[in-house]
């Protein structure tokens, strides 16, 4: 059996958090006598990841996804449990380990703000001890793949968010890491930029057999990249397995927005016995079971005059909010 490149056993992490009561009295009390309590943010988690796998970490805000990623890449010390990434104890942050991994965060940037990204790339290349000729080759290859050849020479502050994110990716991948940790990499990007980034990650994974651990709030990131997902709820692992299986279990419905041609159609449609999620004059959102989408759509389109329709996946947060928070999947 192939050995796991990432192995996590009974991993726990606690943080000391201080709380403050509202008002001046609370502020003064908080200033002079701070009360802190220890909160267990990760509770006894176990999983293993094989080389070349793309694994999505799902969970609501504050579930502990980012904390797990940060422990895996060695930024924070675990409170308890065993952790091994590419045969290393991550928190020791040995040079050989750091040359093997990378962390990309959608909301933090490492590029030098006032200079073109190419300057940051060469600096990173020097830090990772990559010869200039080799660095040039890698920059050429990655910028081709990411389609940012022209942006290499424009100051970062003048790039769009999408171009900046692509440049961040290039800066983070210049040392050809085998393990990528991505924390909400598509945050704030428009649809095109999101798609490009996903496509790039797919190709990168295929070409280099790199292992990718990803957290995201966009269901599309997860569905187009990850075959396997790990669900975290309030620090505990609630599901670890194939995405398809999870989706069938937790999201058996789709929301469809119908825009009716006339008010009469809208009223009739809303009184036809479907599960109405939302109604705003001629716009009606109906929740339909996935297995009956075809027949229901046919029925509605035949019976009513529909001007337009949109099919929506319920957002991942909503799915998780509704189902994962309540029980073990």
């Amino acid at each position, binding site marked *: 059996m192939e050995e796991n490149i990432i192995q996590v056993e009974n991993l726990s992490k606690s943080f000391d958090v201080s709380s403050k009561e509202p008002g001046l009295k609370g502020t003064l009390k908080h200033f002079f006598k701070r009360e802190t309590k220890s909160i267990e943010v990760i509770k006894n988690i176990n999983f293993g990841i094989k080389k070349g796998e793309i694994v999505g970490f799902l969970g609501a805000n504050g579930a502990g996804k980012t904390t797990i990623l940060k422990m895996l890449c060695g930024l924070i010390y675990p409170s308890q449990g065993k952790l091994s990434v590419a045969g290393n104890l991550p928190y020791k942050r040995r040079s050989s380990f750091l040359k093997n991994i990378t*962390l990309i965060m959608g909301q933090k940037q490492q590029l030098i703000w006032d200079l073109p990204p190419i300057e940051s790339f060469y600096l990173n290349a020097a830090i990772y001890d990559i010869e200039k000729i080799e660095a040039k080759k890698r920059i050429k290859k990655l910028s081709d793949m990411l389609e940012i050849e022209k942006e290499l020479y424009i100051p970062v502050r003048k790039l769009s968010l999408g171009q900046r994110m692509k440049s961040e990716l290039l800066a983070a991948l210049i040392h050809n890491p085998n393990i990528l940790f991505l924390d909400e990499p598509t945050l704030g990007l428009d649809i095109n930029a999101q798609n490009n980034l996903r496509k790039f990650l797919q190709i990168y994974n295929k070409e280099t057999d790199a292992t990718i651990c990803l957290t995201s709030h966009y269901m599309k990131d997860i569905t187009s990249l990850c075959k396997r997902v790990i669900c975290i709820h309030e620090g505990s692992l609630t599901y670890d397995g194939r995405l398809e299986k999870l989706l069938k279990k937790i999201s058996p419905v789709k929301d469809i927005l119908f825009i009716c041609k006339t008010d009469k159609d809208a009223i009739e449609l809303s009184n036809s016995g479907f599960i109405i999620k939302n109604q705003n004059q001629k716009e009606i959102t109906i929740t339909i079971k996935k297995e009956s989408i075809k027949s229901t759509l046919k029925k509605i389109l035949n019976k009513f005059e529909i001007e337009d329709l949109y099919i929506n996946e319920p957002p991942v947060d909503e799915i998780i909010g509704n189902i994962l928070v309540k029980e073990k999947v």
Partner: protein
Amino acid sequence: MKIRQYLKIYSLFLNTSIASELEYKANVIIDFITAILSLVGSVFLLTIFFQNTDNIGGWNFEQALIIQGIYTILNGITNTWFNPNLTEIVKHIREGTLDFVLLKPLDSQFFISLNKIAPSGFLEIILGVSLLFYCLDINQININFGFLFLCLTTLFCSIVILYSLWFLISTTTIWFVKTWNATEVLRSFLYIGRFPLNSFSFSLRIFFSIFVPIAFITTIPSEVFLGIAKLWEILLEIFVAGIFFIVSRRFWLYALKYYTSASS
């Protein structure tokens, strides 16, 4: 890690940060003007002090100018290296960008202490050195190898003490998150270093020698310059610099264990 690689990385730090600074021309020019005005103002202040007296704490005007020269060099170094880098530590920790630094296969203290540079501080260093050359002339000091060696050694130790103090305070950000005020206090203490240690009362002298070693930072190099420093003073400064540096380094490595990284 190899020294050659570190030198290469440092030359890139220099390139990128000078290029970044030069993106804003007006800012650089204003910084240059500020440096000149600041030196003129300080010398003017000294002349006022010496208007009615020949010496303060045993130092005459020409000798006190040496302290001013050394202070100007140190202030230039502060503005060139310490200020742009060490104040950023607070930002790195508050915003969580220290993550990127810690994940590089490079010494994190080296990275955050030296990755930026403010070229406007160079002018202050040049002004300070020029003032010292002028002081050589008016105090009729002869330069020889031993003299230069001692001057540079004590000046280097002063820089190390100042850096370590500043770095120590910035490191506490890992627990306290915001320590801008503390570094401001340190800057004000450095301001005190413009005057000879002997011009203060006994209790203040003790305070500035033991608790905040500002006295070491300007007074001892100045005494070396005048040839009145005692050997034990020089050895003590080297010792204090070594201890401060080791403590700041150890403290940083210890503090990193408590780094929780800003939440996203």
